[in-house]
């Protein structure tokens, strides 16, 4: 075995194509996941017993089973039922791209709903009372007080969850998608240089993770800027 650098350079454009798909998958399902997690978190923090139990079951299932099972359940499982094949859902569910997005979204929303619930419950009581005293409607209170505060508190934990999702996105390659891992496997099938190409793929994940960590730091400074204003004034 001689380490073959040239094969990495030769296939770098294709790996970058894969990196774009990885970013797309993580980005789209990250945004959809957090949008979906907000109502789930509010239900978990509420007193509505029936809905609470339902959401807890959802979270328990998606956190207790491997993501790979969830992906296969959606991608292969949906084809078992003729009524799905005949319905308007089929054009979406037959595409591996959308199945991956659906699976990642459901999975990450289960994890982030739990994180968000903790943050919502730890918004200081005084701030909620002040909002009431100012005559805010419940919706306005959620929009202007609870959510901004909860997002500020949840960001460090959420950035962790987001990085885990970046790593999980490699599973998209198991349903024929050509993300970084999928692209690497296709290239290796042609060149038979697994160590070099997997090394390059791994480095790409590391670079993306490093950039994401930096972006989350910036976002954290921005969202929690009220904490730093007094310090800047000095």
């Amino acid at each position, binding site marked *: 075995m001689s380490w073959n650098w040239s094969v990495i350079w030769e296939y770098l454009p294709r790996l970058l194509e894969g990196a774009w798909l990885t970013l797309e998958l993580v980005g789209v399902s990250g945004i959809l996941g957090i949008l979906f997690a907000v109502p789930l978190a509010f239900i978990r923090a509420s007193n509505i017993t029936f809905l609470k139990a339902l959401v807890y079951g959802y979270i328990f299932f998606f956190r207790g089973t491997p993501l790979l*099972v*969830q992906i296969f*359940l959606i991608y292969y499982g949906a084809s*078992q039922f003729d009524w799905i094949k005949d319905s308007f859902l089929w054009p979406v569910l037959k595409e591996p791209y959308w199945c991956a997005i659906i699976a990642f979204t459901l999975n990450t929303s289960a994890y982030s709903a739990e994180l968000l619930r903790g943050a919502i419950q730890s918004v200081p009581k005084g701030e909620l009372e002040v909002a009431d005293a100012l005559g805010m409607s419940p919706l306005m209170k959620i929009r202007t007080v609870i959510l901004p505060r909860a997002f500020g508190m949840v960001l460090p934990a959420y950035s962790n969850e987001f990085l885990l999702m970046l790593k999980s996105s490699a599973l998209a*390659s198991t349903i024929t998608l050509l993300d970084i891992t999928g692209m690497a496997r296709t290239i290796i099938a042609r060149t038979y240089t697994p160590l070099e190409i*997997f090394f390059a793929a791994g480095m790409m994940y590391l670079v993306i993770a490093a950039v994401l960590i930096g972006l989350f730091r910036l976002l954290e400074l921005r969202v929690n800027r009220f904490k730093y204003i007094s310090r800047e004034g000095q």
Partner: protein
Amino acid sequence: MDLEGFGHLLLSGAWVTVEIALCSLVLGLIIGIVGALAKLSSSPFLYVPATLYTTIVRGIPELLLVLTIYFGGAQFLMWISSFWGYEGYIEVNAFAAGVTALAIAFGAYSTEVFRMALLEIPKGQWESAQAMGLSPRQTFFRIIVPQIWRLAIPGLGNLFQVLLKDTALVSVIGLNELMRQAAVGSASTKQPFDFYLAAAILYLLLTLIATGISAWLEKLSKPEMRRAKA
């Protein structure tokens, strides 16, 4: 749900899943302890590689790690054996490759758990053990280890849950564990939903059992938290 007689196949797969998880756990714990000691040592020859190891492994997907060990491992072993003049094809055993990959991943995370636990123990204990004439090795096994367990068990319990779910990745390299058997069953019965749902339920059961055991160990490691018998 009708598994058409494939139920025992799923159960045998679940057993392989448990085997993979336990083997990776043992190996990963050893890596974790050694890694934590290396990371806390003052010699750069130890802490630089250990830090590189945890940073890199925690940043790349577990699936990529499994694939690299399985396919790259063959390439690597063929290169080594070429020194002895063997030029044939070598295939890596899927079970060994899977366990190695999962242990490397688990080891990176458990290194951090053990490192935090070791940092919790006051330096004074090392010093007083030395003053009492214990060798560093005796100090480590008799004074430090009994204490790090209780600090590390909650963190390790969480990591084991992740490990249990990551065993599904080994199906990608063709090992007949739960996920793979579900795929086999669904291919021959054309009922993928039933089989993957059955697999999901078995994974949930395994996760529940693991949670129970780690809660029990946590209680066991904290005698002062047990209620006094009247």
